[in-house]
């Protein structure tokens, strides 16, 4: 049981082939991610990174193989239980995905409102998480008034406000300058230290080389490298 608890994500020989696509997007991938790990997912465009993340979120189902997330076999998880699974995961994207007509505070509160959290809880935890991501004092700004780095902090606050077990970040620094990127990475590192598992797909070589965390590399759907304390690519 203890072993089960430690593994938050497990892929067993997972292959994913999309309809009308000759080549599988992901082919025979097996791996485990332990609780509290920080994992970089690297590879060129079309290598299967996004498919990997979509499978973890159960937005897609594998063609063959089994996936376990947070102790649950996704293949046996009925549709109506998917929302409960997603409440244990937070997601951050390259394009932030904030609601432009809501303030910073409302954007973060929205994530709690729609899962039915009571107002009293929302009033308490939203300022806490905004303080954590370094946006205290900007609660009433609209996303359009913020810099890219600040908008991504709002998105991270929204992903983290429900204290998820896993945080999935799909190129979170893709739209940011190096300075803002470093700020975001520091924030993700801080969140990782609270025990949250982080899986981050990225193209940013400097960040991967600097952080020295576990690196999983995909190439044309195959898992070609799984290295703890790795760098972005082999030096040639």
């Amino acid at each position, binding site marked *: 049981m203890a072993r089960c608890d430690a593994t938050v994500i497990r892929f067993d020989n997972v292959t994913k082939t999309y309809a009308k696509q000759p080549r599988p997007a992901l082919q025979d991938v097996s791996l485990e991610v332990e609780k509290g790990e920080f994992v970089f997912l690297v590879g060129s465009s079309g290598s299967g990174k996004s498919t990997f993340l979509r499978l973890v*979120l*159960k937005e897609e189902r594998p063609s063959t193989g089994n996936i376990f997330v947070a102790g649950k076999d996704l293949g046996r998880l009925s*549709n*109506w239980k*998917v*929302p*409960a*699974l*997603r*409440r*244990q*995961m*937070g*997601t951050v994207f390259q394009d932030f*995905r904030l*609601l432009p007509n809501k303030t910073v505070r409302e954007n973060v509160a*929205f*994530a709690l*409102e*729609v*899962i*039915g959290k009571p*107002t009293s809880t929302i009033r308490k935890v939203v300022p806490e998480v905004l303080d954590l991501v370094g946006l205290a004092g900007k609660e009433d700004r609209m996303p359009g008034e913020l810099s890219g780095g600040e908008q991504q902090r709002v998105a991270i606050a*929204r992903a983290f406000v*429900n204290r998820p077990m896993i945080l999935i970040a799909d190129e979170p620094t893709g739209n940011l300058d190096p300075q803002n990127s470093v700020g975001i990475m520091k924030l993700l590192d801080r969140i990782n230290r609270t025990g949250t598992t982080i899986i981050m797909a990225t193209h940013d070589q400097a960040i991967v080389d600097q952080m020295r965390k576990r690196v999983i590399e995909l190439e044309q759907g195959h898992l070609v490298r799984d290295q703890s304390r790795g760098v972005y690519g082999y030096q040639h």
Partner: protein
Amino acid sequence: MRAQFVLKEIGIGLRRNLTMTIAVVVSVALSLTLFGAALLVSKQADSMKDYWYDRVEVSIFLCNKTDPKKDGCVNGEVSNADREAISADLKKMPEVDQVFFENKQDAFAHFKEQNKDSPLGDSLTPDQLPESFRVKLKDPTKFDVISSAFAGRAGVQSVQDQKKLLKPFFDLLTSARMAAYGIMFFMLLVAILLIINTARVSAFSRRRETGIMRLVGASNFYIQGPFILESAVAGLVGALVATGLLSAGYYFGIKRGLADSIQLLKSQLIGFDAVISVLPWLFLLGIGMSAIASFFTLRKYLKV
């Protein structure tokens, strides 16, 4: 579910698609009005049938000496023995409720009364009118039993069912109802297609919100609820408009139109309670149809 959140979302959604919402409300209102009208017409027909079938009789006219000598009348005027046999047989039949005998004097008096303003009655003598049995049936539709038993029998000139005289009128009511149902069917189709489209546009214009809702683990109930309630509210407004139209139609068409101008009909016309009794069906259909149509549309567009 947090009511405040949902109400806010419904308000935003309905305002954002105002023109589509109006189209849905109008088409729902029209189809429900036709549905209500069809129900009222059949209630009206029932009420008139109750009234008239209670009063209609089967008349068995007996042979008069002026009748042509054929069929039941080959022996000329009906004999006393035949008359008594017919009377006795009628009273034995289980379908028969009551039997009245109308002699020549009674028939003459009735005729005079019905035609008192016309010179027609002056030239007539009681002798020229036939005697008849007026039969009230327990079930007014059982005319055929009487007809087959007495038509062509010795002394019987003809058997006449007064219900036949009312048939064209009830046929007219039936076709009016069918026409209302037919138009209603097409209006309902239009309404459903509009609801489906509105739900789709609504889901599309809020795909950013729903995308985030899915990612943070909102349940289907939360994601689809506002959209379904939005349609239901449009259906509710449509039903309210239909209620207004039906009430106005009742007031001007039946109450002011028919009842006041034709005194004879007054007691047979349906009351406003009939209008009230069809209203629950309008609301059920209006709200239910809208909610179900949008539910099935959204299942396709808001998958987990």
